[in-house]
């Protein structure tokens, strides 16, 4: 395969939490939002990142664009480490990595018209564009994402969520990025609109040859758009595999539980499906379980799971579990 566009190694994000009323010298409590995530992303590829809220998926995305401080490495194709770059040096890469946000309306300045919003990044990154040139690029982009030309002078609040997300996408793509990070871009939208936006994104991705990181909180959303999928739990990678492999033959108990919660359109299959309930709540990321972080909710957990942390296997289909295997394998096993 070609050279990766982005290779992330052992990315960690730790927040220091000060409780209200803490004295200045008390030790802050540490929240490890992302603890040691590694993956590679190839040009033109879509990586889906799935996890419950609190799994660190958004934090991971934000760390890649220096919105939150992180440690580890995130090496861009030209060798620059996005995490270590200074603010000034990062500026060169800003146009290459763009982001689409979860709440489309909140991500648009309410005092600007659609035309101004989409033109804004051009003003920063393509300073020598003439006014007419800029305008024509904005118009072309609006057309590309399915906005009407006569909407150019309207304000964001006049748009529906789905339309507003199109504006957000246009703003991200107008600078011709190489990587588009979509942070739950459809979670805030009506189900009927979600498919439209996802289709638009995958179309744009194909036509523009974009690499994409697509974050979602359930597996069904990323299924069709992703080439590979990474499942996160408490800031750690549980499983990372080609879409087909992950959906067809999930190896990790957590992935299996998530998949069993996805409704299947075929009623017969839906009835025949084995539902693996996820027991209990997500443990506090402040105080994660020892060994395998999933063990408190895992039906297969054994003593070893509490003692040693399973490493993500370095195969094409990576799993972080001491007892990986298809669903049936676990059916007869009695948790110790």
């Amino acid at each position, binding site marked *: 395969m070609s050279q990766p566009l982005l290779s992330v190694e052992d990315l960690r994000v730790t927040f220091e939490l000060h409780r209200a009323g803490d004295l200045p010298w008390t030790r802050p409590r540490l929240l490890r939002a992302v603890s040691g995530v590694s993956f590679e992303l190839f040009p033109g590829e879509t990586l889906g990142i799935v996890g419950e809220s609190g799994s660190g998926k958004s934090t991971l995305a934000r760390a890649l*664009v220096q*919105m939150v401080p992180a440690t580890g490495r995130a090496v861009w194709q030209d060798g620059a480490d996005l995490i270590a770059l200074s603010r000034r040096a990062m*500026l060169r890469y*800003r*146009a290459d*990595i*763009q*982001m689409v*946000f*979860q*709440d489309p309306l*909140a*991500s*648009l*300045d*309410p*005092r600007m*018209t659609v*035309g*101004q919003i989409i033109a*804004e*990044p051009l003003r*920063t*990154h393509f300073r020598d564009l003439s006014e007419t040139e800029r305008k024509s690029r904005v118009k072309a982009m609006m057309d590309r994402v399915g906005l009407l030309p*006569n*909407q150019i*002078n*309207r*304000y964001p609040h*006049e748009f529906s969520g789905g339309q507003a997300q199109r504006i*957000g996408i246009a*703003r991200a793509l107008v*600078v011709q990025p190489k990587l588009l990070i979509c942070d739950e871009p459809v979670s805030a939208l009506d189900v009927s609109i979600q498919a439209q936006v996802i289709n638009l994104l995958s179309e744009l991705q194909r036509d523009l040859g974009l690499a994409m990181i697509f974050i979602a909180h359930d597996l069904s959303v990323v299924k069709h758009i992703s080439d590979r999928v990474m499942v996160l739990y408490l800031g750690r990678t549980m499983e990372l595999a080609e879409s087909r492999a992950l959906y067809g033959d999930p190896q990790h108990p957590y992935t299996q539980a998530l998949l069993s919660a996805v409704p299947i359109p075929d009623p017969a299959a839906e009835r025949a499906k084995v539902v693996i309930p996820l027991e209990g709540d997500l443990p506090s990321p402040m105080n994660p379980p020892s060994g395998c972080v999933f063990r408190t909710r895992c039906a297969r957990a054994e003593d070893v799971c509490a003692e040693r942390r399973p490493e993500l296997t370095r195969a094409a289909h990576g799993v972080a579990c001491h007892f990986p295997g298809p669903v049936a394998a676990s059916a007869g096993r009695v948790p110790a």
Partner: protein
Amino acid sequence: MSAMTRHEWLLSDRPTSRRQARLGQAYRTWLSFRTNWLAMVGLGIVVALVLVALFANVIAPYDPVLGGDLRTERFLPPLTGNHLLGTDDLSRDIFSRIVHGSRLTLLVVVLVAVIATPIGLLVGTTAGYFGGWVDTVLMRITDIFLAFPRLILALAFVAALGPGIENAIIAIAITSWPPYARLARAETLTIRDSDFISAARLQGASSARILWGHVTPLCLSSVIIRVTLDMAGIILTAAGLGFLGLGAQPPQPEWGAMIAAGRRFLIDQWWVATMPGVAIFIVSLGFNLLGDGLRDVLDPKARK
């Protein structure tokens, strides 16, 4: 363009230019402002003040500084002869003095707004946006200013700078910005973490650009409302300084100074001190009503 089509042009939901979109928004704001009659009264008073100040030479029948005959025309009560509001101890027509005094009042109000608002906005948005020690330092300075009652602080500054209308304006401006800084900071804190600011930062916009292009416009409306509501206080402070002899100097027809001059004759010639007092009252009321009305239509949190 007839009135009807202009109305339609402004309310069009398909504006063809940015100017039309912006005018349309302003027009909608105006339509909702117009339904508030108290606010319209306030606006009327403020517009009247501006007009009177502009055309003082035409409106005032007499010279504001040169008096009439000291033997026959002192202390004429209101409505004697041509003296609508009577004359004062130096036979000057009080109405003419009030009309010319409106210029000083307007000058104070405008200059204080022009000086204090940008300072407050700059300090507040900078403190709120950057946070950390920048915030701490700027806000402690603001607190120091806020710790003193405004008139006292203004008095101290004028005492240091020397009496006079210019120094009074500077002193009032220096004492007026802290509340605007606090307000702008509070607004900035709510805006700072919103996604569209993150989006702007991700696009590589500089801090200055974010502050100026995204944060300030959003703080502007609440600060403008606050400034308008403060106008009454500013006028009163200016009048207070004038009254104490530290603001405008005689024979300038400043309203506060006029009250100070008239207070010696309050029992026998009540109108000398009362008339400028009424003027201060009406103008302060006008700014307050206008500010309330503006808050109703402009404040995004009160709307809907």
